[in-house]
C-alpha cells in the first residue's frame, strides 16, 4: 500500500513512546523523524519534505493546535493529530484547523497505521471530487465508489443512490417513503424491489457484520437512520 521509504515527522514529547512508535512504523516501511518539542518540529518541518506529520497536541513548549495551524499555513502535508486530552472539542477544533485525522491516546498501533495510510492515500488522490467520510467508510461522490478501510465495495447504481441519500442525511431518521422520494430522482430504473431488500443488500456490502448493523440502522415503525458517528 505505502511506498517504501515515505518520510514521517513524529512530533511527540515522550521519547519512550516516540521511539516505540518510530520503531513500529519503521517496521511497516516508513522512515520516521522524531521531533521532541514544538521548536524542533518547526525546524524539521521547515528543513525537509515530509509525506505526513503525526502531531501530539500536548508539547512542553508549544500548543499543538498552534503548531497545527502553523504547519497548515505553509503546506498541505497530511496531518494526523494525536492527543491524550480526549476532549471531543479538541478534536473538532483540530479538524477545523486543518488536521486530516485524529487519534486519541492510548491507541491501537494497527489503527495508527491504518489511519496514517488512509491520510497518505487521500493526499495521493487529492480528491477534486467530493468524498463523504464516516470513520472507515468513504463514499466518493465523484467516482461513485464506496470504500471500507480503503477497499472498494461494489454497489449497483441503485444501491449507491440509496446509500448516498442515507449518508447525506446521516443522524436523521428517514422513512421508507422519504427514501423512495429522494432515490427516485437519482436513478432511471425504478425500484422494482422494496427498500428493505435494497437496504439488506447495502448492508451486506458495507457492514462489517450485516446481522449486527452499525452503519445503516432500522427503526421499527419509523424507517432507517445512517449512523453519523462510526468512528470507534
Amino acid at each position: 500500500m505505502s511506498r517504501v521509504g515515505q518520510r514521517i515527522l513524529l512530533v511527540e514529547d515522550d521519547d519512550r513512546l516516540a521511539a516505540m512508535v518510530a520503531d513500529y512504523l519503521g517496521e511497516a516501511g516508513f522512515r520516521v523523524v522524531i521531533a521532541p518539542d514544538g521548536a524542533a518540529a518547526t525546524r524539521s518541518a521547515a528543513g525537509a519534505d515530509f509525506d505526513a506529520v503525526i502531531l501530539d497536541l500536548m508539547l512542553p513548549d508549544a500548543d499543538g493546535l498552534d503548531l497545527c495551524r502553523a504547519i497548515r499555513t505553509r503546506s498541505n502535508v497530511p496531518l494526523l493529530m494525536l492527543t491524550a486530552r480526549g476532549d471531543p472539542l479538541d478534536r473538532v477544533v483540530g479538524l477545523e484547523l486543518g488536521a486530516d485525522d485524529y487519534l486519541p491516546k492510548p491507541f491501537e498501533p494497527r489503527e495508527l497505521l491504518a489511519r496514517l495510510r488512509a491520510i497518505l492515500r487521500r493526499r495521493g488522490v487529492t480528491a477534486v471530487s467530493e468524498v463523504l467520510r464516516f470513520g472507515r467508510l468513504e463514499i466518493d461522490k465523484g467516482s461513485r465508489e464506496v470504500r471500507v478501510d480503503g477497499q472498494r465495495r461494489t454497489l449497483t447504481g441503485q444501491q449507491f443512490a440509496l446509500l448516498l441519500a442515507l449518508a447525506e442525511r446521516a443522524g436523521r431518521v428517514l422513512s421508507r417513503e422519504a427514501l423512495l422520494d429522494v432515490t427516485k430522482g437519482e436513478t432511471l430504473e425504478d425500484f422494482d424491489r422494496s427498500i428493505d431488500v435494497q437496504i439488506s443488500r447495502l448492508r451486506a456490502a458495507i457492514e462489517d457484520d450485516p446481522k449486527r448493523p452499525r452503519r445503516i440502522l432500522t427503526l421499527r415503525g419509523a424507517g432507517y437512520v445512517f449512523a453519523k458517528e462510526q468512528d470507534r
Partner: protein
Amino acid sequence: MFLRRLHLQFYIAIVGTLVAFLVCGAVVWHYFSAPRGAIWGIESATGLAATLLMEPGDGGRDGEIAVALGRQLHAHVVLLDATGTPRISTGRVPDMSREETRERGWVFTQEGPVFTRTLADGRRLIVYPLRRFLMHGLHMGLVLIGIAVTLALLTYPISRGIAARLERLREGVQQFGGGNLAARVAVEGRDEVAALATSFNESAHRIEQLVSSHQLLLAHCSHELRTPLARIRMAMEKLPAADSPAGAELVRNIAELDALIGEMLLSSRLDATRGLERTETIDLLALCAEEASWFDREVTGEALSVRGEPWMLRCLVRNLLENARIHGGGATTVFIERVRDTARLSVEDGGPGVAEVDRERIFEPFQRATSSGGATGAGLGLSIVRQIARAHGGAVAYEACAAGGSRFIVTLPLA
C-alpha cells in the same frame, strides 16, 4: 454619588425628604391657612355689625358700618337685601347660589371662604377676606398630600440610583453563579456597593483561576496517565503472546482505565459549569439508535429534536445502556416519547432493580447501590448522566418497573 457611605446616603435621603415636607407644609400653612383668631374675629365682628345694622335709623349708617367693618377686618363686605340684591358692596359680590346665601356661616366660593350672616329682617351680610386662604380642613389635607406625592416622585430617582447598582450587582453574581466564570460587574461610585462589587470581582477572578488551573491539572493528569497507557499498548505489539487471553485482558484493562480517565475529565468539565459550547439540533431517536446499535439494542418511539452537544448526549445514552448491561442484564426497552414540551427517553432493564433507599444515591459520583454486590463499573456513569441531563436543561429519574427491573427516565427540552 459623592457620598462615600451607603448608610449616609439613605440617612440623608430620609432626613432630606422629611425636612422638605416640613418646609413646604409650613409655607402652605403660613400663606394659605386662616389663623384661628382671624376666623373668630370675622365671625364676632360680623355678629356685632349685624346688631348695629338692626338698630333703627336711616339707611345712611348701613354704608358706614359696612365700610368700617371691611377696613377693620381687611375684608370685603356686601350687604344684600331680603330679595338677594346687593345694596352695599365694597368689592365683588361672590357668586353664590340662592341656596348658599340662605345658609349661615362659612361658604366656599370662587372668592375663597365667605362668611354670611342673615339679619333678623331678612337682609344678609357677606364678609370675605381680601387675602384668600384655604380654611377647609379637607383642602388643607389635599394640598399636603399633593406636596407629599410631589416629594415622593422627586425622591424616586435617588432611591432608584442606589438600588439600580445593587440590581446590576445581583445580575453579575447571578451570571457568575449560572456558570459564566468570566462574568464581572462594573464598579460604580465609592461606597459600600462599590466595595462589594470590587470584592465580588476579586473572588470571581480567584474562582475562575482556581477552576481553570484545576482543569489544566486534569488535562495534564490525563496526558500523564494516557501516555504510559499508550506505551503499554505499543509494547504489547512486541509481545509474542499478545493474542492470548492474558493479552486480551491487558487490552481490556487499558481500555477501562482510558474510559475512567475520560469520565473523570468529563465529570470535572461538567462540574465547572462552563455550560454547553457547541450545540446543534439533534434527532434524538437517530442518536439513540446509533448508540444502541453498539449494544445490539433497538430503539422505538417518536423522532424528536432536541438541542445539545451531540457527543455529550451520546455519552448520556451510552452510559444508560452500559448501566443496564452491567446491572440489569442489558436494556430491554429503549423508548422515546413526547411529554408536553419535553422529549422523554426511557431505558428499561430486566435486572433486580434498585432498592428504595438507593434510588437517589445511585446518581452520586462513585456511589453504587448497596445491593449491586460485585458489579463492575467506575461508579461515575449515572452521575455523568445526571450532569449531562442538567447541563441540557433536563433531568434524570429512576422508576421501578412493574416487572421488577429498573427504568431510567431522562427528560430533555425539545428544540
